[in-house]
C-alpha cells in the first residue's frame, strides 16, 4: 500500500501560517470534540507576538514513519500518514524525526498521536472562523492531469524550474490535440529537443522572438480552413512577449486570432545570463540593472502585460501561479474554451538562478508573490474582470523580497515603495472587478 501511491496527489489541509486571530482556539476545540485529544496545536504566543496553528502536513515522505520502531505509522492509499496508537510504544522517535510539529504526545497514556485529516473531512477546517484553515481538494484534479506527460524526462532545464513545471502541467490540461509554439528562451528546450532527440510528443514549431503570434495566425487559420479542432498554443517567455515580440502579439489579439498564448514570466532573459526585461520588478538586480554606487537595481516599474492584453478586449486573459495549480488548470480550460479570439495566460515563473534563491524555493516564492499582492490572481473575459484568489490581509512585502537575493540591497524606503506598487497593482484589479465585474463564474471543469 505504501509503494504504489503518489503522495503528491492528495488533498491537503492548507494553513495560512500565522494568520490566526489571538486567543482563537476553535480548531483545537473542534479537534478535541472529534478526537478527544487535539491533534492540532494553537500557537498562541502574545509574547512573540505570533498567533497560528500547526498540525501534521502529511509529508509525501514521512520521516516519522521511517523512524517508528514498530511499524505503527503508515501512509494510507490516499497519502495520509496514520499512527496506530495500539502499536505505539511511546519511544518518541517520530517526534524527533518530525521537524514540522506534526507529532503530539499523550503523557497520560505514553503514546504518540497525530492528525489523520478526519478521513478527509477535517473538523478543524470546518470550524475555522477565519479561513486560516482550509481543506483543499486537489487530489482529484491532480490525478486527472497527471497523465499523459507530453514531454520526456530529463529536459535540459534547471531542476525545479517553474517554466518546465508549468509547461508540463499546461499540456497535461490542454491535451494532445495541440501544436506547441516556442521561441528562443529557457523553455524552448522542451519543445526543441536536444540534437536529434525529440523531447515532446506534440508537433512543435520553433519561432523567432519576433514572430510567434504571426506564425500561429497562419497555422490556426489553415487548421480552421480544413476543419480541424487542433489548437495552436504558445509557451513563450516574457522577453519575447513583452519586449521584441509584443507587436505581433498585440496585432493577433486585436485581430481576434483564436490562439492560446501562455507567457511564462521569469522577469528577464535568463538563459543568456539574467538581463532585465520589461516585466522585471522595480528594484530587482539583474546583469543589466546592477547594484552599485549609482544604480540600485531596475529603476522602472514593470510593464503589466496581462492588463494590456485585457485592454485589447481579448477573449480571455488570466494570471496564473504554479503555487495554485487548481486555479492554473481551471484557467487553461477557460482559455481553451474561448474560441472567439485570443486567449492569454500569464504564468508567474520565478527563476531561482536569476532571482537568487535556493533551488527548491520557487513554489514558495510563487505563493508569497500572491500572498503579498505582488502578483494578483485574476481573469478577464472580453474586458470583464474577476479576482480569482482574493487576498484579504496581505503579508508584508518583505516576506516576499526576503526570499530573493536580487532584492537584498533594498532598504526600508525602497521596500515601502515596492509595497505600494503591489498595493496599486492589486487595487487596480479590484477596481476593475468592481466596475466591470465578470459576473457569473465559469463552470468548473
Amino acid at each position, binding site marked *: 500500500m505504501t509503494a504504489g501511491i503518489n503522495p503528491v496527489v492528495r488533498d491537503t489541509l492548507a494553513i495560512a501560517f500565522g494568520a490566526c486571530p489571538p486567543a482563537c482556539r476553535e480548531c483545537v476545540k473542534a479537534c478535541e470534540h472529534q478526537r478527544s485529544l487535539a491533534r492540532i496545536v494553537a500557537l498562541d504566543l502574545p509574547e512573540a507576538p505570533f498567533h497560528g496553528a500547526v498540525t501534521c502536513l502529511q509529508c509525501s515522505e514521512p520521516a516519522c514513519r521511517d523512524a517508528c520502531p514498530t511499524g505503527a505509522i503508515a501512509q494510507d492509499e490516499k497519502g495520509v500518514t496514520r499512527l496506530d496508537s495500539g502499536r505505539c510504544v511511546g519511544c518518541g522517535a517520530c*517526534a524527533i*524525526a518530525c521537524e514540522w510539529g506534526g507529532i503530539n504526545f499523550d503523557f497520560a497514556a505514553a503514546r504518540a498521536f497525530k492528525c489523520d485529516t478526519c478521513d478527509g473531512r477535517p473538523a478543524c477546517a470546518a470550524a475555522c472562523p477565519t479561513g486560516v484553515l482550509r481543506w483543499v481538494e486537489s487530489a482529484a484534479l491532480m490525478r486527472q492531469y497527471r497523465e499523459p506527460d507530453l514531454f520526456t524526462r530529463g529536459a535540459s532545464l534547471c531542476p525545479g524550474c517553474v517554466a518546465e513545471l508549468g509547461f508540463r502541467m499546461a499540456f497535461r490540461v490542454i491535451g494532445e490535440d495541440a501544436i506547441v509554439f516556442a521561441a528562443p528562451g529557457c523553455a524552448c528546450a522542451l519543445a526543441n529537443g536536444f540534437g536529434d532527440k525529440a523531447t515532446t510528443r506534440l508537433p512543435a514549431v520553433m519561432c523567432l522572438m519576433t514572430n510567434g503570434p504571426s506564425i500561429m495566425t497562419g497555422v490556426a487559420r489553415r487548421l480552421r480552413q480544413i476543419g480541424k479542432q487542433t489548437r495552436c498554443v504558445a509557451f513563450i517567455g516574457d522577453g519575447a512577449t513583452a519586449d521584441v515580440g509584443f507587436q505581433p502579439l498585440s496585432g493577433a489579439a486585436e485581430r481576434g486570432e483564436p490562439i492560446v498564448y501562455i507567457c511564462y514570466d521569469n522577469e528577464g532573459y535568463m538563459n543568456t545570463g539574467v538581463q532585465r526585461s520589461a516585466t522585471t520588478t522595480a528594484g530587482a538586480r539583474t546583469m543589466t540593472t546592477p547594484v552599485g554606487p549609482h544604480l540600485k537595481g531596475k529603476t522602472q516599474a514593470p510593464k503589466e502585460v496581462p492588463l494590456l492584453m485585457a485592454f485589447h478586449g481579448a477573449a480571455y486573459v488570466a494570471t496564473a501561479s504554479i503555487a495554485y495549480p487548481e486555479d492554473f488548470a481551471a484557467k487553461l480550460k477557460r482559455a481553451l474554451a474561448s474560441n472567439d479570439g485570443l486567449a492569454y495566460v500569464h504564468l508567474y515563473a520565478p527563476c531561482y538562478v536569476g532571482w537568487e534563491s535556493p533551488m527548491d524555493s520557487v513554489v514558495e516564492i510563487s505563493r508569497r508573490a500572491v500572498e503579498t499582492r505582488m502578483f494578483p490572481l485574476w481573469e478577464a473575459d472580453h474586458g470583464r474582470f474577476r479576482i480569482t484568489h482574493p487576498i484579504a490581509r496581505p503579508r508584508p512585502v518583505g516576506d516576499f523580497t526576503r526570499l530573493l537575493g536580487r532584492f537584498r540591497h533594498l532598504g526600508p524606503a525602497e521596500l515601502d515603495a515596492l509595497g505600494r506598487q503591489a498595493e496599486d497593482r492589486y487595487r487596480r484589479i479590484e477596481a476593475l472587478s468592481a466596475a466591470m465585474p465578470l459576473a457569473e463564474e465559469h463552470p468548473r471543469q
Partner: protein
Amino acid sequence: MNPTLRHVIVGAGTAGIAAAEAIRKTPEAASITLISAESDAPYSPTVLPHLLAERISQRAVALRSAEFFDDIRCRLLLGRSVSALDADRRAVRLDDDSQIDFDRLLLAVGSEPLTPALDNPDGVRCLSFTRMTDLHDLRARLAPGCRVAVLGAGLIGMELAEALAGLGRGLQVLVVEQEQQVLPRTFNQEIAGEVLALFRAHGVRFQLGLRAVALEKAGGAVTLTLSDQRSHVADLVIGCVGVKPRVSWLAGSGIALGRGIAVDARMATNVAGVYAAGDAAEGPAADGSAGLNPVLPTAAAQGRIAGANMAGRSVQHDGWVPANFFNFFGRVAVSVGDNSAGPARSTVDRKANGGRGQLFFEGERLVGASFLGVPTDPGALSLLIRRRTPVREYAELLAQRPLEASRWLAARLQRGN
C-alpha cells in the same frame, strides 16, 4: 539507467528498510534483496524494553507487514548472515558460502554490544540486551525475586532498568555506572539527578562513579565486585556499556573503517557503489564532524538518503543532531543537541509547569536543550539546532512554553521567515 540494476541491502532494520523503500520510490526498475541475519520478521531493537515490560505484544512489533515487502517487490532473506564482502567481484558471501552479486550495496548491519571489561575467572554469563535473542534469554532466566545487576546507565541500561522495575515480581534492580551521573552525555547533572531520584523512588538502586571490575560464581548466584572493592550479589548480570558498529567482518574488504563504516553526506563509502547507513555508519553530524549516532531517527534518515543515491538520485544528509526521548515511569525526558555547559556558553534553567527545562546557547544560537516532565517538541528543537538558528532573544519563551515556542520558531524557519 540499467533496468536490471541489482540492489543488495545487508541488514533489515530501520536503515535497511528505509533504503529499500527509497529505492522503490524512484522510477527506475531495479531488483532489491534485503538480508537479515535473524530469522525474526524485521524488527527494531528499540522494542526490546517495551516487550520486556509487556507494553506491547510480540505480534505488534514487526517493522513492516509481510505484504509490504511483496508490494515494493523486495526479496527478503531472513536468517541468512553475510560473512564477507568481495568489493572487486561485487558480491557478498553468505554463511552457507553462497554468493549474491550486486551493482549497489548497502551495509545496514547495525551495532553490537560492547563487552564490559571484567575479571571473570569463572566464565560467568554476562547477558546483553540488544537483540531479540537477548530478550528470550533474559526472560528464560528472570525468575521472581531475581536480583539483576545492570552494568551501565546509558540509554539501553536505563530503559532496561525501567522495564525491570515496572515488572514487579519482587525483582531487585541494581544499576552500576562509572560516571557520577546517569545518562552521561545525554543530560547534564541537574536533570540526570532528577531522573535518578525518579528511578530510586521506583525501587531501583544505583552505584554511581564506580566500575564493575570482577564477576565470580557464588553458589547459584554471582558476586559482582566494583572498583571500590565492595561486592554485590546478583542472580543475573546484564552488560549495557554501549554499542559499537558491527564492522569487524569488513576488515580487509577495502571498505574504509573509522569507528564505523566511513561515509560521506551521500552515505557513500570509499568503494564506488557501496553505501552504509544506520548504527553501522560513521556519517556527518550537523556540525560538520563525523561520528556515530546510533538512534532511530538517524538510521531512518541515513537509510532514506542511501537508498535514493543508490537508485541514481543525488541527495545529501544534512547531518545528525544528537536527540533522545525517554519516557521513564510516565515522565518524559527529552535531550537535543549538546547539553554541556562550556565557557563560551550561556544557560537558561527554568522550573515550569511541574517540570524543568534547560537551554544552552552559543552567542545567539541554540546548541542544546533538555526538558523533563514538560511537553516539548524534540523535532522542532533539532531543526533549530541543526540550522544554527539565532533564537537567544526567545530563550525565556522557549523555557516557559517549549512546545509552542519551539514549534513556532521551527515553522517560521521552515517557511523562510
